[in-house]
């Protein structure tokens, strides 16, 4: 007989009972998004790694407070994001975000002309600079919602704010970005 893999709720229950193997599975499942979230919020890789690690340790110790039946991912992101924001406050400077090799072509894409690729790369670079210049609260909302692809509810959980506040911050941030890009002619 082959053991069926446990669903996340089952893993959480086992971890709640002290099963570290179950928690290890959960860490491996969520560590990518947790680290990227921490990276965008803390501003550098070293702080992000520390924040994500501390977040998973604290989350395990706080499993008794995790509401049964609730979604684990927003709860984890909230803890990790909180650790990351705490580190940003003490960080000297934030690493500048960078784009992957802009001309990388994904399988199935039509190969763009060198001019079109250059233009697209420049536009992305300009958008990235505009995002970086946003006030921290708006930048964080944009980072969580669009750059990381979190839902509005997950963005609210990660930032420790209400869904309505996420909406208003995104709205202000998008307006400012439009303004900046129009001024720059992008």
């Amino acid at each position, binding site marked *: 007989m082959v053991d069926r893999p446990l669903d996340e709720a089952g893993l959480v229950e086992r971890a709640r009972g002290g099963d570290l193997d179950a928690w*290890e599975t959960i860490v491996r499942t969520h560590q990518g998004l947790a680290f990227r979230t921490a990276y965008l919020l803390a501003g550098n890789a070293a702080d992000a790694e520390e924040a994500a690690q501390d977040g998973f*340790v604290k989350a395990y110790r706080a499993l008794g407070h995790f509401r049964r039946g609730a979604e684990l991912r927003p709860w984890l992101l909230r803890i990790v994001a909180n650790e990351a924001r705490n580190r940003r406050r003490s960080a000297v400077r934030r690493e500048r975000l*960078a*784009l992957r090799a802009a001309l990388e072509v994904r399988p199935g894409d039509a190969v763009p002309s060198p001019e079109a690729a250059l233009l697209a790369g420049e536009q992305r670079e300009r*958008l990235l600079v505009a995002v970086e210049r946003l006030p921290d609260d708006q930048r964080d909302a944009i980072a969580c919602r*669009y*750059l990381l692809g979190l839902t509005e509810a997950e963005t609210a959980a990660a930032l420790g704010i209400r869904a309505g506040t996420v909406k208003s911050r995104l709205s202000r941030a998008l307006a400012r970005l439009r303004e900046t890009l129009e001024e720059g002619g992008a």
Partner: protein
Amino acid sequence: MNELELRLEELGRELAFPPTPELAPAVIERLRRKPFAWRRVGVAVALALVALAAAFAVPQARTALLDFFHLGGATVIRVDTLPRATERSHAAGLGFPVTLQEAQRRTGVRLLLPPGERPSRAYVLGDALVTVVLKADGKPVRLSEFGSFGPGSLQKLVAQEANVEAARVNGAQALWIQGPHAFEYFGRNGFHRAPVREHGNVLLWLNGDLTLRLEGPLTKAQALELARRTQ
């Protein structure tokens, strides 16, 4: 989703994130390490030092620390000379009189009483010690209860000639003290009740998180019987 939002999502896919480090081994290793209970040790050491300091602050007792017992939140120290202490009546110096309900609300102690006993008032000392005066075998006795937040919060200084014996109440540890002693209390928030001289016999015992103390002119058998029924 409008065009700008789509461009931002695209930007997210193009971001050069540093490679995700392997977090699981470090997380699991940290969780396997048991945190050292510094806080618990600190509280126990601090309270023991307070108890010792209090005993040694009494000039006559300075060279006369003879024995030391711990039971839940209580410490019993045997000295060869008891400190000068005030004497009290059954209800005096027990604290502020309130209803049972109010005493439980103020201290968080769920008061345990013998069946059929429902005193009209309780006395609250500091922030955690509740005392009621009961009648047992026709004699007035005091029953005090408090949450055990560390050793040494309730302190008994007993004279050399007093008898201190280990006992059991419903399977839990207990101490029976017969002979002259003084009672002193250190509350959680720096509250301190100076020593009060007592003449009755005392039974100290544990019930869950509570430390209980029965004091009065009872024999050991009578006190143990009353303690057994206090649930």
